[in-house]
């Protein structure tokens, strides 16, 4: 095996930069793992650590600040056999925090190397999510106000099954990377280093001091047994394989002659949540299609679905429906006060050519429309069945819908007991 370093593009870091040590450490790790360039994708983001992918002869994916894990996720799901290594600085860690947390929870077999040098080197040494409060940065006093993030503790809490921390200058940094990459699941290595160009200029800190601090705060290394579980990709594929393929889109054949209709016909259905208004709208459309008509259906209900109005607008036509709005309804079915209130302004505009079919107990705003009352209580029809009963009355009138079409619509929508119950309601009318 030979090095995977890209000899045409040697590292260009500032003299003394810890990043360069990680470049060589990662190369040694890839060699130790017996990986060739085609088997590896290095995914990086913005900042000095974002130069990483160019130093290697592997697949290389360099994207936006903090988003490297998002690309790595898609890549790994599409190519499970690929070894995916994400390189990110403490800057990317901060801005991409949501992706880090979600990657820990998701547990895809990806390795994240955080090149943590406690500041934004490339933009001039501003504070990052990991800058100590007592450090001096070009963010003036701002880093004194925010507590640094201990990413290892956070990652463990978020469900990462493998979390480690190592000095970039550490003797076995390469071995630690090998262990992290070898782990079958999401692994995170917090690699501490020194930024000579920015951080070291303002903070007199030695490697020995950093190492001492690391020992002080680091609680555990490597596998977190309580977070160990099946990897996301294999788990996904296992569950997906149990799913039944979706059936072909239902085809409705025009098998019935619809009663004569003079062009376009608009139907408004006004009810309340729980009255199956939308389902009835669908049944009406399927019924119309069985009669060779075209149909559109729009539903209107509050975002909190279990209360309030439920309004359905259906347009039927002999040719494909153009405008899907309702301006002059031919028919209005009134099933509950909530729906009537929602469209109260339409009633005064109606003439006798509009047919209103309503529950006898409901009050309407003033209207010149023709009104048919149904005494649902007398007929012992529950509120949830009333819209279907109203459709049966409409079919009895026979303007554009007949009973045969309605039964065909019900047949397309329901099966089993639901189908029998729906048919019973129609027969009651």
């Amino acid at each position: 095996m030979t090095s995977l370093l890209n000899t045409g593009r040697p590292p260009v870091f500032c003299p003394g930069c810890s990043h360069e040590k990680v470049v060589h450490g990662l190369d040694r790790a890839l060699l130790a793992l017996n990986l060739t360039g085609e088997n590896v994708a290095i995914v990086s983001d913005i900042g000095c650590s974002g130069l990483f992918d160019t130093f290697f002869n592997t697949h290389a994916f360099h994207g936006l600040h903090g988003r490297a894990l998002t690309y790595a996720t898609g890549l790994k799901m599409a190519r499970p056999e690929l070894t995916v290594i994400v390189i990110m600085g403490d800057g990317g860690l901060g801005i991409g925090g949501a992706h880090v947390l979600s990657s820990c929870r998701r547990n895809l077999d990806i390795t994240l190397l955080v090149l943590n040098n406690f500041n934004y080197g490339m933009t001039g040494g501003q504070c990052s999510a990991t800058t100590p409060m007592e450090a001096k940065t070009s963010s003036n006093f701002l880093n004194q106000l925010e507590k640094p993030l201990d990413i290892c503790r956070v990652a463990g809490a978020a469900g990462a099954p493998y979390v480690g921390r190592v000095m970039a200058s550490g003797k076995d940094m390469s071995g630690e990377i090998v262990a992290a990459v070898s782990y079958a699941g999401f692994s995170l290595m917090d690699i501490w280093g020194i930024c000579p160009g920015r951080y070291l200029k303002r903070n007199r800190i030695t490697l020995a001091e950093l190492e001492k601090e690391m020992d002080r705060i680091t609680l555990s290394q490597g596998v977190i047994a309580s977070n160990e579980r099946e990897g996301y990709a294999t788990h996904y594929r296992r569950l997906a394989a149990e799913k039944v393929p979706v059936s072909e889109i239902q085809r409705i054949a025009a098998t019935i002659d619809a009663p004569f209709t003079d062009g376009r016909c608009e139907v408004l259905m006004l009810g309340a949540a729980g009255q199956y208004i939308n389902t009835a709208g669908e049944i009406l459309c399927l019924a119309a299609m069985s009669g060779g008509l075209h149909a559109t259906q729009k539903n209107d209900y509050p975002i909190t679905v279990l209360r309030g109005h439920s309004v359905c607008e259906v347009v039927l036509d002999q040719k494909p429906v153009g405008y899907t709005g309702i301006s002059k309804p031919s028919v209005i079915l009134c099933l509950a006060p909530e729906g009537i209130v929602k469209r109260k302004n339409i009633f005064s505009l109606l003439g006798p050519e509009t047919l209103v079919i309503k529950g006898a107990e409901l009050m309407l705003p003033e209207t010149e429309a023709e009104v048919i009352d149904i005494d649902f209580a007398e007929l012992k029809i529950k509120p949830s069945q009333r819209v279907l009963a109203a459709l049966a009355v409409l079919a009895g009138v026979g303007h554009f819908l007949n009973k045969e079409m309605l039964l065909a619509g019900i047949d397309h929508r329901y099966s089993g007991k639901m189908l029998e119950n729906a048919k019973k309601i129609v027969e009651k009318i």
Partner: protein
Amino acid sequence: MTLTFLDGNEGIARGAMAAGCSFFAGYPITPATSIYQQMLQLLPPTGGVCMQGEDEIASIGFCLGASMAGVKAMTATSGPGISLYSEQISFAIGGEIPLVIVDVQRLGPSTGSATKGADGDIQFLRWGNSGGLPVIVLAPVDAKDCYLLTMHAFNLAEQYRCPVFIASNKEIATTRESVDLDGCLPPEVVRRNPAPKDHSGHPFEPLEGELIPPFFPMGGHRLSRQTSSTHGPEGYITTDPAIIETGILRLKEKLHSGVDDFTFFDLDVQTEDKILLVVYGVTARAARTAVVDLREMGCKISLLILKSLYPVPEKLIRGAIKDKSQVVVIEMNHGQYVREIERLAVGVPVRFFGQMNGELISPESIVKEVTA
């Protein structure tokens, strides 16, 4: 004839499957959510992947990763999600990553009205990227268009290596309608163009005389390189102005030179017409009705329904405007695409009517506008 009963979002999901989509990632948002829900039903049993990202940025990021691995990917959102997609859209343009992005538009600005329709993102889709290079934007009129244009969108994304938008609208997305699916003519499915053996291996180097580089999938047997940085053919960051300019001009030219291949439209011409009515999206449905009424009233009017919005099909629009005495543009916003029509209408007066109140523009208001 048999009919199906679909809404626009179902049309998009089914169209995506027919086009060979095998990866979808999204974040729930009204009125686009049902595309994600559909894909979650459709993809897993066929070996495809459907994921819910932690946010919109992640969702589109997953798609970029998957697309670079060589699979056909789609994401879907609404205006607020497009805002979050923005940086990744710029990446898809610069990195030439094939991707279909659905924007089921809802009334803005900002979170606006989740359940009200609008066409308020039209210029946003075109210009909502850093650098301002072109994208393809297709605009469906109904559920059938959603199906067909999604298939075209996948084909174009593969062919031109770019993000392709479907500019849908709540009013198309959630309105169910009877569709003669068997009677429509789907395009032949285009597959991604792999690099021939004798290609240099430079991931952004087109073959001689071509504008679009062949594709090297991540994880393939030849190394692939992707970068959001300004790059040369080799995929490395560059500061060389000549290399930069060549690359940028190619990104522009590859789409502009192909406009005729993806100019989708309906043109209903009346002889001796004086007026041209220009619409797109759901408003086209009202316009069709309005034009019938206007002609009955003796108005000499032709109707142009644009289904490709960007890059602007200039040849088509110029040709349709030629010899007219008046152009009327109607949009579900307060004047976006009319800017394109105005610059092409040289000398012909352009009148605009727009509406942003969450309601559909009615045929009556169009008739009123044209006859005013």
